[in-house]
């Protein structure tokens, strides 16, 4: 089981309290009707599917109830960082450097 730190509760807790919520930092277009079919398809379905550091959303479902963001290595399952929803995307190069 993964251990996940909730940035709101400031506690490291078992995965069973959390639900995964897909890739992070995908903003809904302000004006969807201006989108081409291809662009709309990409927004809905196309994800980066990275091997390595992945920006993703989690929700502390059985806890404070909040959505937050995390950077997790999809190979090792190691969490590089977690941060509150709405906070800027952290610099990946620096995260990787710190993780060394």
């Amino acid at each position: 089981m993964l251990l996940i730190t909730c940035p709101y509760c400031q506690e490291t807790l078992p995965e069973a309290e959390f639900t995964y919520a897909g890739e992070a930092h995908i903003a809904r277009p302000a004006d969807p009707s201006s989108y081409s079919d291809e662009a709309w398809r990409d927004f809905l379905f196309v994800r980066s599917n990275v091997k390595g550091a992945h920006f993703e959303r989690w929700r502390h479902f059985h806890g404070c109830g909040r959505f937050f963001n995390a950077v997790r290595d999809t190979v090792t399952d190691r969490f590089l960082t977690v941060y509150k929803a709405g906070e800027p995307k952290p610099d990946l190069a620096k995260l990787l450097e710190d993780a060394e």
Partner: protein
Amino acid sequence: MTVIPFDFRPGTLVESAGVSIRILMPKTRLSLRARTAAVPAISRALGVAVPEKIGQRASGEGANAETEILCLGPDEWVLLTDVEQVGTITAAMDAIYKEHPHSLVDVSDREITVEIFGDKATDLLTLGWPRNPLSVPIGEARRTVFDGASVVIWHDSETSWRLNGWRSFMPHLLGLLVTGCRELSAE
């Protein structure tokens, strides 16, 4: 197999050498959602210092002694109180509503609370709780998961806990806890 009745009559559910479970008398349970900026005004209105750290709780004094408030999330609290106090509380909260909009909803009927007590009460909780019970300090509480169901677990003393969950999950949760009591007393 023990069949857990759905009427949840208050009283002892199971008693054993190490741990006992008791269904507590119903209390009024109010769900409160508000912005952090409203906390000082709400504290004044309730006469209780509303905790802002998730998992911390506070109790009232004097006529308010039966009122307990627990911080569940950054903008969410649960208030436990006596049914006689509800009128006073809602009137006080109504008075600050204009300046501090909030949601205060009576969810008393939604949940059942049991007390789990005895030398092995903490051991019993490990049966369905995927975290270390002692990571919740005495005097605090957490919303968490117990064998798949959302619950709030209150750490009251070294040997006593309260667990409250939604009533539809309680036959499952209590069935598991009763079985656990038997296992612990068989040691």
